[in-house]
């Protein structure tokens, strides 16, 4: 589709917010100027599991400059948080369930005093037996973490007759895969500030992915009316899912409620590591059967994921994992089950992909193992099994449009083939072995089988100035720019000429979370609907004014003109006055909720998402067979995004996703109690980055704004399995647990014989 059809959609316009960031404006919570600000700091548990017998704050309160120490009894409303299920107290009451659990909150005039007070709060603990392994937590007699038991949720998807299909299968592959807990490591540690407004409103600026949820939660914690709290999203330096939880917002609300003076809480990197969500570590048992042609006929999958002390987004992760277990492949007989289990691990929650990256390791490894067993090319087996128009998914949904998986496979094919012939045959030193791997993915846009609407308002004033009001939090991915482009396209305006009011609960309505790769598709549609309504009112008035029928009118550069006689035109200013003078409406609300059907609890039958994004990555790696060092040289990444509203943003997401995927594949592992900070948790540096070749595929989604879907999470999902498949191709030995660390790769090299046979006497 040519971009010329649109004047701003499809163009990589200057990014909104870039100038403020580049010139160092104080837009982040840590930098905001406030007078007489108090510093907050939480006292956190010293035990992974313990009863609380008493908390003594006397010594802490006697420290100079310490203003107050709050405990659970100071919380006026409901001391319970959680976006899906409420199980997490803001401050622990009767017990702590992990080392991250806050038990008290200090407010002090200096950071030093706050720190001293934290050390001086004395908590009387009654240590309880703790359990960290989810499979152990499921065993009878395991320590009970929550009163209702250790199972957070079990999600199932069943279809066809798995037993019969395995019976008839030509080859069966059954393996166990493991992934590690991952820390998001966003650039900006969690932060917030708060102050009382002139009218007494508690105003909270926060680094967040979901201001309207924060608002609901703070209101509930404080037991106040909705209007008593206003949440504004501050500039947010990345989130990747972790800033969907209430990290500092509740603490700021609590202190503000009692002290009525400005407060600030900025996590140190160590606290951000300790106290915020992690990616769920998974254990996945997967069994697949194929016929002699390589068609996958059956899949059985049982996964256990460790949600740690609290649910957070665990239910969504389990549900998405079960629904996505098949990968982007048509499999008629499935029995899929994912159980999320409570343990005393620090809580796990949302992270880019919600269980899908973990599943992709399993299904993409299985595909390669089947291909090898049948002596098939890894690309061919994916083409054979890949979803296409008419495929019925594991949840019984027939895919009818915007199914770009085969296009993504085709898009990487030339580079993949070239790598397989030319690159692999280049000479290398004896200790270096090269490998090429490929992996596919699918990802449902929006929340799984539940309503998740977005709203937006587009308004024009008497001067013709258009303002977009959206609750959508831009956390660095660029949604404000994209939503401006969508409104601009609908109204014939330059995107940058539209004023924006973003993520402020006083002025914007709920757009839902910036998660699930949903904002371009869902909020984009809400914005488009509002803008279209305004455009229609302008057109109607222009018909009256220009005496030209609506079908011939166009919105262009701030005026409405006759497409056949461009000199016939009327400016927005004149139209706005005429409409307002007549008592007309220039402020319009948009609403969009993707059509989903809730999934059956036993079979998973339903429509989890209206549309899916697809992708395929090919990775070229070099493995040092003597040391286990792995270098990813090149990643070719094709993504079906429906329509790239802002192509540079899409490319940015793809490259960032690959970077995160390299970390997930090769080096990242958060070990509770051991991992303290970036000193002992390695994310890839620029030197670890491969050359990335992004390829944008546009299989237009009819229900998307200008055909758009999403790319935020898909960008990461195929990278790790593509790398693992490439390492396996290099060594002839497979790795089943992430990260494919020095140790695991060297073990594989030794097992394959390459370690010992590297150098021969010539």
């Amino acid at each position, binding site marked *: 589709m040519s971009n010329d059809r649109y004047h701003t959609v499809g163009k990589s316009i200057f990014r909104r917010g870039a100038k403020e960031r580049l010139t160092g404006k104080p837009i982040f919570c840590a930098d905001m100027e406030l007078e007489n600000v108090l510093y907050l700091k939480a006292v956190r548990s010293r035990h992974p599991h313990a009863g609380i017998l008493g908390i003594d704050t006397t010594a802490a309160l006697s420290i100079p400059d310490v203003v107050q120490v709050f405990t659970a009894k100071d919380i006026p409303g409901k001391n319970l948080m959680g976006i899906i299920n409420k199980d997490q107290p803001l401050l622990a009451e009767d017990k702590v369930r992990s080392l991250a659990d806050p038990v008290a909150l200090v407010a002090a005039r200096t950071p030093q005093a706050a720190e001293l007070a934290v050390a001086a709060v004395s908590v009387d603990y009654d240590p309880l037996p703790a359990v960290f392994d989810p499979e152990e937590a499921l065993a009878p007699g395991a320590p009970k973490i929550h009163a209702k038991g250790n199972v957070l949720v079990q999600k199932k998807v069943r279809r066809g007759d798995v037993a019969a299909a395995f019976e008839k299968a030509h080859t069966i592959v059954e393996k166990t895969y493991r992934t590690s807990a991952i820390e998001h490591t966003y650039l900006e540690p969690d932060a917030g500030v708060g102050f009382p407004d002139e009218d007494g409103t508690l105003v909270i600026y926060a680094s967040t992915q979901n201001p309207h949820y924060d608002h609901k939660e703070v209101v509930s914690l404080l037991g106040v009316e909705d209007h008593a709290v206003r949440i504004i999203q501050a500039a947010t330096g990345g989130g990747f899912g972790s800033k969907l939880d209430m990290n500092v917002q509740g603490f700021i609300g609590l202190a503000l409620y009692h002290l009525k003076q400005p407060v600030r809480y900025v996590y140190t990197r160590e606290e951000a590591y300790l106290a915020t969500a992690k990616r769920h570590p998974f254990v996945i048992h997967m069994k697949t059967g194929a016929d002699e042609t390589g068609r996958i006929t059956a899949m059985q999958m049982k996964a256990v994921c460790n949600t740690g002390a609290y649910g957070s987004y665990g239910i969504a992760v389990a549900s998405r994992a079960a629904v996505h277990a098949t990968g982007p492949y048509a499999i008629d007989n499935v029995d899929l089950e994912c159980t999320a289990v409570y343990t005393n691990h620090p809580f796990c929650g949302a992270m880019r992909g919600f269980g899908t990256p973990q599943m992709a390791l399993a299904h993409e490894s299985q595909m390669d193992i089947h291909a090898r067993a049948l002596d098939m090319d890894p690309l061919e087996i994916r083409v054979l099994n890949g979803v296409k128009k008419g495929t019925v998914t594991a949840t019984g949904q027939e895919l009818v449009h915007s199914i770009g998986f085969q296009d993504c496979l085709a898009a990487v094919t030339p580079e993949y083939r070239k790598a397989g012939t030319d690159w692999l045959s280049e000479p290398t030193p004896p200790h270096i072995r090269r490998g090429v791997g490929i992996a596919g993915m699918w990802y449902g846009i929006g929340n799984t089988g539940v309503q998740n609407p977005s709203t937006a308002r587009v308004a024009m004033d008497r001067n013709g100035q258009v303002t977009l009001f959206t609750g959508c939090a831009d956390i660095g991915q660029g949604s404000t720019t994209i939503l401006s482009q969508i409104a601009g396209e609908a109204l014939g305006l330059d995107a940058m000429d539209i004023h924006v009011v973003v993520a402020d609960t006083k002025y914007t309505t709920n757009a839902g979370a910036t998660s699930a790769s949903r904002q371009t598709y869902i909020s984009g549609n809400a914005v488009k609907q509002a803008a279209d309504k305004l455009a229609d009112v302008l057109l109607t008035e222009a018909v009256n004014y220009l005496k030209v029928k609506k079908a011939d009118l166009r919105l262009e550069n701030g005026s409405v003109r006759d497409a056949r006689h461009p000199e016939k035109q009327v400016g927005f200013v004149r139209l706005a006055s005429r409409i307002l003078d007549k008592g007309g409406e220039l402020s319009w609300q948009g609403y969009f909720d993707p059509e989903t059907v809730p999934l059956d609890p036993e079979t998973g039958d339903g429509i989890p998402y209206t549309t899916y994004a697809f992708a395929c990555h090919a990775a070229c790696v070099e493995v*040092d067979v003597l040391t286990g060092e792995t270098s990813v040289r090149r990643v070719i990444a094709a993504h079906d995004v429906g329509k790239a509203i802002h192509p540079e943003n899409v490319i940015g997401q793809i490259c960032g996703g690959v970077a995160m995927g390299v970390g997930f594949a090769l080096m990242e592992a958060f070990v509770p109690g051991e991992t303290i900070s970036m000193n002992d948790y390695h994310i*890839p540096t620029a030197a670890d980055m491969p050359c990335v070749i992004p390829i944008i595929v546009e299989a237009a989604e009819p229900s998307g704004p200008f055909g758009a879907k999403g790319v935020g999470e898909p960008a990461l999902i195929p990278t790790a399995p593509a790398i693992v498949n490439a390492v396996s191709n290099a060594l002839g030995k497979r790795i089943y647990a992430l990260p494919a*660390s*020095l140790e695991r790769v*060297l073990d594989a090299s030794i097992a394959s014989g390459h370690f010992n046979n590297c150098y021969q006497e010539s």
Partner: protein
Amino acid sequence: MTTMTCIRPESLDEAVDFLHDHGPDTHILAGGTDLMVDLRSGENHRPFLLDISRIETLKTVELSDDQARLYIGSGVTLTRINTLPLIKEHAPALHKCSFTFASRQIRNMATIGGNVAHASPCGDTIPPLVIHEAEAVVANRDGNRTIPLLEMTKGAYRSALHPEDLVVALKLKTRQPGFFDFQKIGRRKALATSRMSMAVMADKDDQGRISFIRFSLGACTPTPQRMHTVESLFAGKNPTVELMNQGAGLLAEKMVEITGRRPSISYKEPAVQGLFKRMIYPMITWCRQ
């Protein structure tokens, strides 16, 4: 978070005087790349911070008149080690290690004296210094003395320095070897503490036999090691793949003997052999040229 008094002397005498009076209560700040991390963790707090970064005499690099010794001031940064022709010529393995040391930003700050004085088992400059039989020149109010590098470290992060001591220079035996290398393994390609490092330099006679060899292993053992048994295995011989494999086995044996069998040994035992082979294999080819 606690307050510290920062002292920034302009001369070596001032610094040494201060250490004489306040040594045990003082952290010495050179590049700060290790110290800042330690201070942040809040452990081992001392009231004074002695910033020696302005003492110009610590930043000199010079060759002795007979060219047998190279003096590298303790305040010389890794970036300068990377760019000075004198070092490239007379201590080429040290020069090579400066390419992969941490990251460019850290190389701009980190000093060779700090790398030595910190007594980290993982200091990348240690194996290259050991193969040059380096000594630390240490000053205090009583005067200067030299400590062989291998005796500088009493254990992991335990330096043999006294609180009133300041490392002023490293003194290396110069050599322009026919073959040299530095190799390391990290968890990523930059900014990762070395899991293992090693340095070698060698010369051959006209028959292609090893006539001189120095080999040192870093990061695997609590203190720096010069591996004499490995050196003597090669000395006087024409290196072969078989000899290399034998050396690798010997090295691993020696390492396990020092460290014992900790959980990390299941990686280190094969990896130390692998890294050794990766480094020594080109020496075989070189000897046959």
